[in-house]
C-alpha cells in the first residue's frame, strides 16, 4: 500500500476532494483561487525540499536557487512576445535545471552537514546576486512575462493559463502528481537505498553501494521539481524577481517543512497551508503580525515535536491503541 499511515490516508481523503471542489465555493472570488494556487505551488516546492531534507538527509539552504531558476529559465528561453507550448517548456526547464543540479550536485555533495548547508547557500547566493545585478533580466526590479504559454497537446488545448481556475487545477494536478511521484519513489527500490544511506551511510558503502550516485540522483530529481514549482509560480502572475532566489525563500520553505513534519512528504502541504494561513490571518488582523507569527512558531516547535503530520499520526495511533 502506498499510504501506510492512517493520518496519511485521512489527509488524502480530506484534502484532495476538498481542493477539487474548492473553486466552486470561491467562484465569485478570484483572489482566493489565486491564493490557493500559490499555496499549491509552494507545496510542490516544499515537498521537493522535504524529499531532500527528510528522506535523503541532504539539508540545503539553497533550494530557492532552483525555484528562481525555474522562473528565470523561462524568461531566458522563451521569446518575449510569442506564446510557447507549456509542456515543451516544462520539459526544457526541468531538463536544464536537472543538468544544472547535476553539475552543482557533483560539487556540493562532497560535503555534508552544516558544510553542505553553507555551500548550497553559497551557490544560491551566487545566482541571486547574478540576477540582482543583471541588466538583461531587470536586476532587483525583476522582469515580466508578457505572454503566457499555451497548453495544447497535439492540438488539443485543455487548460487556459490565463484563467485562474484552470491554472488552479493545473497546479492541483501537479501537486497530486508530485505527491504520488515522491510516494512511489520513496517506496521504490531506489528509495530503499536512499533510506539506508540516510540512516547509515558508512554501512551502505560497506555493502557496496556508491552512495554518491544515489545522493546525486535524488538531488537532481528534487531540484528539477523545485524548478518546476518556480516555473508555475512565475506563470501565475507573469512576474519574476530575484527575491525568489533569496536565502529567505529557502529558509521559509524550511520553516514550512519543519512545521509540517519532516520526512512525511504530505506534511509539506500541511506546513505550507499552516504557514501561509497564519501569515494571512495575522497580517489581516494586526500590523504587528510578526510578533504573533514568531510567538506561534515558537509555540509550535515546543508542542509539535514531529511537526503537524507527526502530531496527527500520534493522535490517530493513540486512538487506535485504545
Amino acid at each position: 500500500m502506498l499510504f501506510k499511515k492512517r493520518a496519511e490516508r485521512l489527509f488524502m481523503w480530506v484534502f484532495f476532494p476538498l481542493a477539487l471542489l474548492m473553486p466552486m465555493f470561491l467562484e465569485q472570488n478570484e483572489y482566493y483561487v489565486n491564493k490557493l494556487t500559490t499555496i499549491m505551488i509552494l507545496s510542490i516546492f516544499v515537498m521537493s525540499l522535504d524529499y531532500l531534507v527528510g528522506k535523503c538527509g541532504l539539508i540545503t539552504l539553497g533550494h530557492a536557487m532552483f525555484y528562481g531558476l525555474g522562473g528565470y529559465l523561462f524568461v531566458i528561453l522563451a521569446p518575449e512576445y510569442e506564446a510557447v507550448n507549456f509542456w515543451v517548456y516544462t520539459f526544457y526547464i526541468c531538463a536544464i535545471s536537472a543538468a544544472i543540479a547535476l553539475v552543482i550536485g557533483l560539487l556540493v555533495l562532497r560535503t555534508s552537514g552544516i558544510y553542505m548547508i553553507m555551500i548550497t547557500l553559497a551557490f544560491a547566493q551566487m545566482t541571486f546576486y547574478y540576477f540582482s545585478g543583471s541588466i538583461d533580466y531587470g536586476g532587483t526590479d525583476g522582469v515580466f512575462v508578457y505572454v503566457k504559454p499555451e497548453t495544447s497537446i497535439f492540438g488539443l488545448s485543455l487548460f487556459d493559463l490565463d484563467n485562474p481556475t484552470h491554472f488552479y487545477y493545473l497546479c492541483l494536478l501537479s501537486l497530486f502528481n508530485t505527491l504520488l511521484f515522491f510516494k512511489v519513489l520513496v517506496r521504490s527500490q531506489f528509495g530503499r537505498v536512499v533510506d539506508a544511506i540516510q540512516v547509515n551511510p558508512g554501512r551502505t558503502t560497506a555493502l557496496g553501494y556508491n552512495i554518491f550516485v544515489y545522493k546525486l540522483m535524488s538531488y537532481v530529481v528534487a531540484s528539477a521539481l523545485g524548478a518546476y514549482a518556480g516555473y508555475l509560480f512565475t506563470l501565475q502572475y507573469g512576474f519574476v524577481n530575484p527575491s525568489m532566489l533569496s536565502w529567505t525563500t529557502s529558509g521559509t520553505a524550511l520553516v514550512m517543512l519543519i512545521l509540517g513534519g519532516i520526512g512525511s512528504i504530505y506534511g509539506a502541504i500541511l506546513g505550507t497551508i499552516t504557514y501561509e494561513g497564519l501569515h494571512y490571518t495575522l497580517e489581516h488582523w494586526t500590523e504587528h503580525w510578526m510578533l504573533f507569527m514568531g510567538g506561534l512558531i515558537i509555540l509550535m516547535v515546543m508542542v509539535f515535536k514531529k511537526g503537524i503530520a507527526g502530531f496527527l499520526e500520534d493522535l490517530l495511533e493513540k486512538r487506535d491503541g485504545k
Partner: protein
Amino acid sequence: ADPNPIKVGVMLPFSGVYGGLGDATRNGLKMALQEHAGELYGRQIEFIEMDTEAQPSRAPEIANSLLNKERADFIVGPVHSGVAMGMIKVLKDKNTIMIIPNAGIDAATGPLCAPNIFRTSFSSWQPSYPMGKIALEQGFKKVITMSWNYGFGKESLAAFEESFESGGGEIVKKILVPFPKTEFQSYLSEIGTIQPDAVFVFFAGGGAVKFVKDYDAMGLKSKIPLLGAGFLTEGTLEAQGVSAEGIQTTLHYADPLDNPENQRFRRDYQTNFGKPSDLYAVQGYDTGLMIASAVKALKGDISDQGALIKALETTEVISPRGAFTFSKAHNPIQNIYLRRVENGENQVIKLAASALEDPARGCKM
C-alpha cells in the same frame, strides 16, 4: 449619497527596512482624506492595509487580493520599485486606480504606463537630472558617480550623467555597489586616490546614513564636495548628525520649504502623529489630496472609470511641495529644489528646475 465606502487599498511596507517610509506615507494619506472628508459627497473611506514587507515576489499576490477580493477602488503603493513591478503586472489596465506614492522606477510612467496607473511622487529621472547642470554651474568638471547597483540607483545616475555630460562634464568613474551592501570603505579609499572635483551619489535610508558618516570619517567631505539625489539626506539627517552638514542635494521637496501649505501641513502632521513630517508623508498626503479632489470633481460617483481617470489626470494638487499637475504619462510635473544641509536641516538654496516633466520615454499613451 452612495452608502458604500470608497475602498482604498494601501500596499506599503510596514515592517523591515522600509517600514518607516510606509508608515509616514500612510499617515499622510489618511491625514489628507480626513481633512477633505467633508467634500466627498458623503462617501466614507475604507482603508485596507497590507504589509508588502518590501518583498517583490509577494507583490502580485497582495495586489491581486486588493483587486479581486477587496475590490478596492484605489490602490496606493508601493515604496519599493521591485514591488511596483509586481503590482503593475497585476493592476495594469484593470478597473482600479493604482497610485504610486513613492517608487521612482522610470518604467512605471515609461514603457509600462497605463491609463489607470498614476504616480504622485517622482520618476527616478526627475530629482537627479537638474543636479548635472548645477554641478557644472558650481565649476565641477570631473565627477565620480556612485550608487547601489539597482534600478532606482542606476536610473538616478543616468539622469545626472545625461545633463552633466551634455553640458561638458566628465564622469571619471562610476561605482556601482551591490545592493544592499553598506561596506563602503574600499570605494571611499578609491575616491580619495582619484580625487575628483565632486562626488554624486544615490543612496537612501540606512545606506545613506552609513555612506555619509563614512564619507565624513574618511576626511573626504571637506575636500571633495558631496552631491546627491535628495534621498541621501531625507529622513536620515538625525542619524547622520554633523556628518551631513554641507551636503547638496536636489529633490522635489524640502522640509523647510517656505509656502503656506507646507507650514500648515507640517504643523498639523506634528499634532496629529506626534512626530515631524517628512517627504514620504508629503507624498502620501498628496496622494490623498488627489483622491479627494477626483471624488469631489465627480460628486462622489466614481463608478465610471473613464471619468475618474479624466478627473485624476486634470487634478492640480496643491501640495506642500508646491502645486503640481500630471503629465500625459501620469507623472507629476513639478519643481525640483537645490538644498543644502545646514544645522541638521535641508535648507532650500534655490529652484533647480521649475515644472520639470519626466521625458516618459517609451510610454505609448
